[in-house]
């Protein structure tokens, strides 16, 4: 039992170390892509916590991503917060938003939950457009380089950006790893597998699901805040339905309810689009065909298939 435990931690530490090593060897173009993938993978990990581990299919995570991003951005430009404080402010806002949305949306389940979360996210997106004077609407706003200094570290610098992205990625990776292996995480899996049984074992199913949405929404909000801060731009696109669908695709591709799946899925899809667009303008068609093939022949996603065939111990 103990040895298996160590193996799990070592694997995930190794993944983080490999990404750190890549920092020193990657050419600038791929270095930039990987930094972006790490931040988006945080969104995917947040999504996976609700979808993969708890079985809550949300189509509204753009709301949490956008809430974190705008709380951070408006915190800096509107309230004059320092970047570090603005990120904390974004986390607090994400907790509140996910608690409110969760307590309303979780009165439904299944298809209704999808629709309700989608509606909330659309309402959030419209709110951003409606209050265009504050949010700058569709156009969005840039966070000036002068306001992207944390303790003297310039986040506009690509090296710093990569390392900060890696630190945040690692924090979320190990936090979710710890959480899914805790009794809280195991109860979520029980609820996913058999909700009625979990209730009749004494679990307060609603409270657990709400907890899962809050964790998931807060991680997604952190991803939004980090994305806006590291890449210096806040815009309504990031709160649009696209950013609810993308994390779902990344997680499905990489492997739902695996810890590394969200990162692998995000990386895979980003490069899939990047590489196919070099050869053809119909790159979305290529991406689409490969996605269909994967869903046909690797239904558990990439990491999910590895887990199923070779490494059942993968968390």
């Amino acid at each position, binding site marked *: 039992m103990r040895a298996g435990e160590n193996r799990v931690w070592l694997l995930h530490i190794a993944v983080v170390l490999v990404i750190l090593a890549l920092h020193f060897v990657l050419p600038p173009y791929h270095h930039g892509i990987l930094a972006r993938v790490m931040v988006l993978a945080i969104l995917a990990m947040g999504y996976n916590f609700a979808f993969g581990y708890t079985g809550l299919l949300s189509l509204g995570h753009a709301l949490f991503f956008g809430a974190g991003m705008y709380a951070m951005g408006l915190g800096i430009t509107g309230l004059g917060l320092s970047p570090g404080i603005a990120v904390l402010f974004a986390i607090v806002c994400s907790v509140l938003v996910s608690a409110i949305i969760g307590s309303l949306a979780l009165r439904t389940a299944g298809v209704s939950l999808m629709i309700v979360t989608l509606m909330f996210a659309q309402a959030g997106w419209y709110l951003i457009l409606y209050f265009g004077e504050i949010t700058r609407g569709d156009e969005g706003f840039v966070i000036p380089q002068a306001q992207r200094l944390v303790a003297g570290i310039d986040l506009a610098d690509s090296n710093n950006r990569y390392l900060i992205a890696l630190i945040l990625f690692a924090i979320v990776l190990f936090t979710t790893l710890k959480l899914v292996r805790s*009794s809280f995480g*195991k*109860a979520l*899996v*029980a609820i996913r*597998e*058999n909700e*009625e*049984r*979990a*209730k*009749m*074992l*004494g*679990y*307060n*199913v609603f409270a657990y699901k709400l907890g899962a949405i809050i964790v998931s929404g807060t991680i997604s909000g952190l991803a939004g805040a980090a994305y806006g801060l590291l890449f210096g731009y806040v815009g309504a696109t990031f709160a649009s339905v696209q950013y609810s669908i993308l994390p779902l695709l990344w997680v499905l591709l990489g492997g739902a309810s695996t810890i590394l799946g969200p990162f692998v899925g995000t990386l895979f899809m980003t490069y899939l689009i990047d590489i196919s667009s070099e050869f053809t303008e119909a790159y979305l068609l290529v991406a689409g065909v490969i996605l269909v093939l994967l869903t046909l022949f690797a239904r558990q996603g990439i990491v999910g298939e590895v887990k199923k065939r070779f490494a059942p111990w993968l968390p």
Partner: protein
Amino acid sequence: MAAVNLLETKNLTKQFGGLTAVNGVSFELPAGQVRALIGPNGAGKSTLVGLLCGRIEATAGDVFFEGHKVTHIPAHKRIGMGMAYTFQITSIFGKLSLHENVALAARPHHKGGAGDLDQAVFGALGDVGLQDRAEELASDLSYGHQRLLEIAMGIVQKPKLLILDEPTQGLADVEVEQFNALIKRLSETSTILLIEHNMNVVMETADFITVLNFGEVLAEGTPQEVRANKLVQDAYLGAG
């Protein structure tokens, strides 16, 4: 003063649309007893226990557990108060190991460390003879063994009241004998409410029997009294 009756209902009623599944049942279960709940198919047995443990909301009447009114308390809290319920239709976590199935049942009631939890889990699996298969997936078990896993998930909660909904359905004869012995052992620490079709199990294990028919209590008494009861004989013979 401690409540003499662990469980009590007063005029408990459940209507599904026009159908009255449970009709004004007043029922008392003293602590320490093994009580069997029997009756023909459709007599309302499963609905009654659903009302007791909170899976089903009562239309009228009340449920008391250890003297407290629990009629409107949600199921998960009643489980927390010391009720345990095993499902009639096997309801386990198929994709999880036997160990994790039982651990999930234990955790809400467990205050100690991981080592204690492990011990409790293996203890409960041992009680039903599945301790050697702890790491197997629950879905790989035969139907009879899944029934036993259900029972282990009830036992590990160390409940004050253990409600078993047709626990021996699908068990082989040898397993039924083991089950009878297990119930006798468990009855030393828990009060047991047993819904059962197998009359051998009922006569072997129950201290007292309640007979339901058409949602109402038809008769109550010791196994000998119930066996001799003319009404009960008619109900069973009449309903097939």
